[in-house]
């Protein structure tokens, strides 16, 4: 038993959902109790997907446990096949269903369905989300891939991108373009956008590009072993890594790989003088192993930062991250305990964090800027604009991502000059983040508004807040309180009132109600 406050990864069946949701023509029948449907909102809300994930939940309840939950599973399975008409289904259990041992795999096999049924064994009490995605994709590939001739032209598959992946949508596009520049066609991208029929065609490619080791490596290894397809080991995130990746592709294919670097701006942006201020900034890097390793190199070699700590939450990547930490001369932090990460950051007190959604919150609390470089992420990390991480455009995007939380170079120099100015001090935050500092303050203090602020307002507008109204105002959430205060005062001034009572507050509220 381990006490957990926040988690970096969901349970393994959520990993399976990421694969199922990424694909087309595949359906997931999940033996699970009421409530496990919460996972749908990860896709529909956080990633803003416009379709429900292709998942049918059996939704068993306590009263079913004495009876026959296996029948529930079979009914759900039949209904799903009939309603959604998939090319193949994957079947499995969530953590609770694992305990009641109904054996969804065995049940589905006896049903005589006319489509492939792929059983999943995902140990919920040992493993986590990334394992679930990796294992699910591997099982799908193992069950569906068919022997066939290689394509005449040199082609590759892109393996690993899933639903709810960090920038996978754009990484696929960028990678496809990069490969096209090198004269290589893409045979299949999987799981993202692939149908079961596409999976069957995987062996036609000459090699595989492993775009997301966390979710695609087992499948890539299996294809290498069984179909003789080599796969790329370099993750092309950053300028140097992208060049290395191109060289690796050249070695695999024997093609003369000369990349088009005309759109690569990152090296000049980093050399230009405004970037001087980046030199030696201490950064702490935490996330999934793949992105952390890539960003350690970017931080040191391409941004000129000083890396003061690195770590990852997925134990599968512990070994390479430990080796990397040794190379960088820092202590590795391999943990999925959020409080431990917070502690490490507090101790190291870096000038910037490159992390996940979780570290963004740690940074907010500690007053340290943070750029998000890895899953887990939240809705704001699914941008509408094109923003890949891989390839040369990815390097441009990452440069912008890493400097955005910071104060610009010129600005930093001015700040030093006018350090004591009451408005223009470094605690005011970067000038391109309007009002951020004040919000952070209100949040940190539990949202209370200081008496001083109220007095200032009162003095300027000649309106006095009576104590009961002021108390009620304090109870309004901090992020709308400012507006409520302004509206109420405007309302009072317009009516020639000199005092704001509780009634005035609510009269104003009703007046402005929409």
């Amino acid at each position, binding site marked *: *038993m*381990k*006490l*957990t*406050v*926040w*988690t970096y*990864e*969901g*349970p393994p069946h*959520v990993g399976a959902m990421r694969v199922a949701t990424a694909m087309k023509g595949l359906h997931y029948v999940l033996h699970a*109790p*009421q*409530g*496990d*449907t*919460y*996972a*749908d*909102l*990860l896709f*529909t*809300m*956080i990633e*803003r*997907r*416009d*379709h*429900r994930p292709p998942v049918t*939940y059996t*939704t*068993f*309840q*306590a009263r*079913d*446990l004495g009876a026959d939950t296996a029948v529930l599973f079979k009914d759900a399975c039949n*209904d799903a096949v009939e309603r959604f008409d998939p090319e193949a289904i994957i079947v499995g259990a*969530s*953590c*609770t269903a694992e*305990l*009641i041992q109904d054996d969804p795999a065995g049940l589905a096999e006896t049903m005589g369905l006319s489509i492939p049924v792929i059983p999943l064994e995902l140990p*919920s*009490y*040992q493993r*986590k989300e990334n394992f679930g995605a990796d294992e699910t994709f591997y099982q799908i590939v193992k069950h569906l891939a068919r022997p066939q001739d290689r394509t005449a032209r040199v082609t590759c598959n892109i393996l690993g991108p899933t639903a709810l992946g960090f920038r996978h949508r754009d990484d696929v596009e960028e990678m496809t373009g990069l490969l096209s520049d090198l004269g290589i066609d893409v045979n299949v991208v999987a799981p993202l956008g692939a149908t079961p029929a596409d999976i069957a065609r995987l062996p036609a490619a000459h090699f595989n590009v492993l775009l997301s080791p966390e979710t695609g490596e087992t499948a890539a290894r299996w294809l290498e072993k069984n179909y003789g397809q080599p796969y790329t080991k370099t993750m092309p995130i950053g300028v140097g890594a992208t060049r290395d990746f191109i060289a690796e592709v050249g070695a695999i294919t024997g093609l003369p790989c000369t990349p088009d670097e005309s759109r690569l701006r990152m090296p000049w942006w980093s050399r230009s003088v405004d970037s001087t201020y980046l030199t030696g900034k201490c950064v702490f890097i935490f996330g999934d192993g793949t992105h952390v390793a890539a960003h350690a190199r970017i931080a040191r070699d391409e941004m000129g930062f000083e890396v003061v700590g690195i770590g990852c939450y997925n134990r599968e990547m512990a070994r390479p991250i430990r080796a990397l930490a040794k190379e960088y001369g820092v202590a590795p932090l391999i943990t999925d305990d959020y409080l431990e990460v917070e502690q490490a950051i507090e101790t190291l007190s870096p000038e910037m964090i490159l992390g996940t959604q979780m570290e963004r*919150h740690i940074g*907010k609390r500690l007053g340290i800027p943070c750029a998000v470089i890895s899953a887990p992420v*939240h809705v704001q990390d699914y941008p509408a604009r094109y923003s890949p991480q891989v390839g040369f455009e990815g390097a441009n995007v990452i440069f912008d991502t890493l400097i955005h939380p910071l104060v610009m170079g010129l600005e930093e120099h001015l700040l030093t000059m006018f350090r004591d100015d009451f408005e223009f001090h470094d605690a005011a935050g970067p000038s391109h983040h309007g009002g951020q500092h004040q919000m952070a303050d209100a949040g940190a203090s539990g949202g209370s508004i200081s008496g001083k602020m109220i007095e200032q307002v009162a003095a300027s507008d000649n309106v006095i807040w009576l104590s009961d109204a002021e108390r*009620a105002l304090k*109870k*309004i959430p901090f992020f709308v309180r400012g507006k409520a205060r302004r509206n109420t005062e405007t309302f009072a001034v317009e009516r020639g009132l000199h005092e704001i009572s509780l*009634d005035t507050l*609510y*009269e104003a*509220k*009703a*007046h402005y*109600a*929409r």
Partner: protein
Amino acid sequence: MNAPLPPANGGCRSAPVLKERGQREVFCGLTGIIWLHRKMQDAFFLVVGSRTCAHLLQSAAGVMIFAEPRFGTAILEESDLAGLADAHEELDREVARLLARRPDIRQLFLVGSCPSEVIKIDLARAAERLSQVHAPHVRVLNYSGSGIETTFTQGEDACLASMVPVLKDTTARELLVVGALPDVVEDQMLDLLADMGVGPVRLLPARRIDDTTAVGPNTVFALTQPFLGDTHAALERRGARHIAAPFPFGDEGTTAWLRAIATEFGVNEETFEAVTAAPRARARKAIAQAADALRGKSVFFFPDSQLEIPLARFLTRECGMTAVEVGSPYIHDALHGPDLDLLPAGPQISEGQDVDKQLARARAARPDLTVCGLGLANPLEAEGLSTKWAIELVFTPVHFYEQAGDLAGLFSRPLRRKSALRLEAAE
């Protein structure tokens, strides 16, 4: 001022109910922890469960409360499943560590989950044992928020019901108001009751453990939330009597709710009128502003929080909407009856869910507004239906007069947005 008139064509209390079961697109009862831990400021909620439970709480809470929360999950691991004797020792150890780190915690709730129920970890026994160890500083209670037993808001019900047996005895004639409300709303309610001379008023849940909530044969209680069926039964077992009323949403619901209490406490008409006239007028004005966008529009409720029936009553009677279907996870006549009486006949009343069948009905009806969970909202928007996410109705202050306009606004915003956006490609 008379009691609200039932609709001319009859209400929905005796309407046939479509009962369905199948896939349910709802949260489990653990979700209630998200608002309960903010309401009870000296309480900690320890879920005994799996990684899924922790992930649910985190996903449902989103980023709204990313302070160090007063809840956590003791995640069961392979070793806990192997031998149950260990599970209790492990729990004792985790609780001791937690309480040592958080001396401000006075009440600890051990919250059962699907896995802990299935492997039958006896949390009642654990709570008793831990209470003895940590008394008198910390009181340890337990309830189940598992998905196999509870749907979304039933988690709050199970939590409050677990507190009823340990409430102090009293023979005093008191009003007990039951249901977690945001403090600002609770204060408004207390002011209204105080102005009418109703008292003493006690609250369940109280903000802190030392508060003076007690119960006994002379207690009368009013519910502010329509999902408190088990708490209702537990209070009746302690001898308290329920004041049945429509729920305090909108001008009409709030007035009816207050009037039921006023009648019970013998408040005269002049006093009632004097206390409620101004806020009622404000509520009406605020509702009218928001209701412009709602009048004549149709609404379809997917089952979510059990707030559906009272909200349908509010939208149809005060905002001029027509209800197509009103789905609720569960319907209790003792709780929902007064609202069903007032809900004009016509809509399909449904209980439980088979989500794909219900989606087919919604698509056929093409309502102007669909109230549904977060998992369904974007997919339905993509099909051209306007939606209101139901969870916001639980997280936002919506009760009583001063919030009536906000409540209407929650429903009108998606419609106003739809008409405000000009994003279609040129012809």
